[in-house]
Every structure is written in C-alpha cells, then in structure tokens.
C-alpha cells in the first residue's frame, strides 16, 4: 500500500471538528432527555395505564424498535414537507432521535418499574411512609439500582449511533463535519481516523461522568468500560 497519510490538513481544520463534537454532545443530551420523558410516560402507561393506551404504547415501541432510526428520520425529513411542515435538519434529527430513544427507554424504564417489589412497598406502608416517602426511599433507589447501568449504556448508544445519523441529512455534527471537510480535500482516511478517535474520547468523558454521577447521586456502580 503506497498511501501516504497526511494529517496536517486535519489539524488545520480541527476547530471545526471540535464544533462538530460539541454539537454531537448537545444532540445526544437533548435526544436522550427527550427520549427519557417519552420513555417515562410510556413505561408509566405500560405499567398503570388502561388497555387501549397500553396497546398504543406497545404498538409504538414495536414499530420503532423494529425499524431503523435512519428511516424514521428520513420519513420526517422527506415526508413532512409534503404535509406542509418545514422543519430544519436539526429539528428533524432531534425529533426523530427523541421518538426513537423514547421507545427503547420505555422498555428500559419499564424493567425498572417492574423491579420494585410489592412487598417492599407494603413494608414501607406499614412503617407509616407517605406516598412521596415511598417513592423517594423505596421506588427510586430500586429503579436507579436496577436500570442505571442500562441507562448509562443507552446514553452512549444515542451519543454515538444516534447522533451520527444526522450526517446523512446534512446536520454538521462530528461525522457530518468530517464528511464536509474531507469532500473538499479528499483526505477521507485521515479525517475519519481522527474523528473515530474523537468519538472514543467523547464517549469516555461521558462514561466517566455517568459513572461518577451514578456513584454520587444513585449510589450505584456503573461500569466505565
């Protein structure tokens, strides 16, 4: 192989890549937060809701989790203008990712809801705990302990696999920036090698942050690796 790597041009444009990484991080956080709200609602309905609503949530989850996020986002991106809705690329990506993450988070959070044992709530009641206290001292610790690792893991999935889909509809997050920059000077391998490294660093920072958060706030040990 006679290819000669030239990283010089990549370092010249590194600030742009950093901007992309920052956008990736923001998109990841917002999509996860939005997804968490949807997921909490979905899990609550699945656990306590009436059957028509449960069926609705089940249908939503089954369809979203069995189709690609990319297609869901293409559906919004290419389909919505036909019904007169013109959203920006970023809005399409964010809404698509939120709906996508919402389905997976419904499943994860639902598992947390189930893990709370009735006997323990009864034990709390016999101790004279109020509803708030029961949630604070029995339900929440349980949910945190049983699903925090899954949540932390899924955040990384959204941050990496989720946001990078944006590159395909022209959102200038990290992968998008790499495509833009390398199509100018054709140093694809160099750009994508550096970008791969940046993703590794970005997710490591996120993993460490989540592990510390888990330890301090929820007193659970989440794995960094």
């Amino acid at each position: 192989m006679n290819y000669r790597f030239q990283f010089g041009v990549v370092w010249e444009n590194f600030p742009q890549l950093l901007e992309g990484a920052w956008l990736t991080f923001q998109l990841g956080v917002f999509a996860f937060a939005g997804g968490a709200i949807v997921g909490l609602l979905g899990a609550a309905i699945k656990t306590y809701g009436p059957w028509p609503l449960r069926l609705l949530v089940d249908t939503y989850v089954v369809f979203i989790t069995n189709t690609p996020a990319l297609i869901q986002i293409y559906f919004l991106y290419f389909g919505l203008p036909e019904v007169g809705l013109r959203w920006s690329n970023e809005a399409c990506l964010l809404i698509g990712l939120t709906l996508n993450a919402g389905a997976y988070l419904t499943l994860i959070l639902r598992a947390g809801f189930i893990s709370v044992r009735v006997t323990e709530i009864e034990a709390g009641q016999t101790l004279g705990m109020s509803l708030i206290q029961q949630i604070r001292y029995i339900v929440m610790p349980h949910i945190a302990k049983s699903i925090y690792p899954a949540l932390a893991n899924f955040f990384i999935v959204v941050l990496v696999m989720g946001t990078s889909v944006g590159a395909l509809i022209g959102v200038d997050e990290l992968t998008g920036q790499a495509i833009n920059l390398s199509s100018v000077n054709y140093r694809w391998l160099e750009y994508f090698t550096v970008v791969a490294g940046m993703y590794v660093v970005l997710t490591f920072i996120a993993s460490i942050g989540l592990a510390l958060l888990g330890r301090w706030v929820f007193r659970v040990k989440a794995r960094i690796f």
Partner: protein
Amino acid sequence: MERILEQAPRFFSGPNLTLLFESAMLTLGMTLAGCLIGFGFAFVLVFLRQTPGLWALPLRLVCITYVEVFRRIPFIVVIYLVLFFIQTVTPDASLFTIAVIAICLYAVAYTADIIRGGLESVPATQVEAAQAMNLSRLQTNLRIVLPQAWPVIVPPAIAFAVSFIKDTALVSQVGVFELTFRGKELNNQGYSGILVFGTIAFCYFLLSFPLSLLGQHLEKRLATPRGERRTRKIRQP
C-alpha cells in the same frame, strides 16, 4: 395525501416490488454474512484475550482495546474508514464486500462481549475440574465451557444480529443497493417521501420483527434445559 393515493398504484407495481424484495434480501444477506463471520472472529478474539501469562499481555490489551474502541465509534464512521481503506488497498473491491467487512468489524466487538459474558457464566469450578484432569485450555473451552455457555451466548447474539439489520441502513451511504438506498432512489424518482419511507420502514419491520420473536422464543427454550437444575445447598461445617 392525494399525492400518495395517486402514486400508490404505480409505486406498488410489480417491478418496484421485485426491486424492494431484492434489496431486502441484500440487507438480510449482508447482515447475516457480516454477523456470522464476525461471530467466528469474536471467538478467536475472546480466546486470545484469555491467554494467560505475562508475555501475552500486549495481546490481551489489543483485544480489550479493539472491543472498547469499536463500541465507541459510530457505524457510519467505520463504514467510511473501511470504504476508503479498502479502496486504497484494492480499488476494485465490490461495495457489498466493503459493507460486509464493516458489519463484520462491528459485530466482532459486540459479540465478543456477549461470548465473554457467556463463558464467564460457566462456574470456574467446572474449569478447575477439567484442569485437574489435564484437559488443555482448548479442550476445556470446546468440551466443557462452550457447550454450557451456548444457551447464554446464542439469544443475545441473535438479538444483536437482528437489531443490526436496522443499523445496516447506514450502508446505503456508500451505494450498496440495499433497502434504504432503494428508498432514496425511489424518492428521487419523485415518489412521495411518506409513501416511500413508510414502505421501506415496513420492509425493515417485516425482516426484523419475526426474527426478533424467533430469538425470544429460542431464549425461552434454551433457558430451561433438560430437567430442572437442582439448587445446591452448601451446609456450613
């Protein structure tokens, strides 16, 4: 809405449906090929990672790093890296080959963790008993550990492959004629985006949903092996 109704008969014509079917098979085929090959390499990776001794430390580190790094890079970045790397080495490699290699590289990282988890689920005492009888590491793995780890490994490995059917949509970006690429092509031909991507989504659903049900069924069957396992009581001396 009118546009969809008007286009629908033309869209769901024979030639289009044939193309969609072929694309779906391509999606399925490259996922299957990539995941199966990746699964095989993952075993090698896990085996290398278990190599004992100080001299094998660099080897173990490489294996650990591989798994860690690939789980933290978006699939689309891997696709681009493979595409441009392979094209630099052998310019006439087919796009399908490139897609399968990318899927394979990714599948190795994910299934390696699944396999490792499965092997670790077998009690260390089983390995010890084998060692005491002089079984080699390979013999112990093949005859004792793997047969017991299988029920733990297979369901999540299938779940991974099924879920990866969806992620292969990203391969459309390099021009493999799979479902998503076909969708974009039809959209470019002027068909409604709602109609096209709704249909494409449904095609993915038809691939993914039955297979995921099959995986869940298998998981339940494998979870209850011959007879019921007795819980071993340890009487404290």
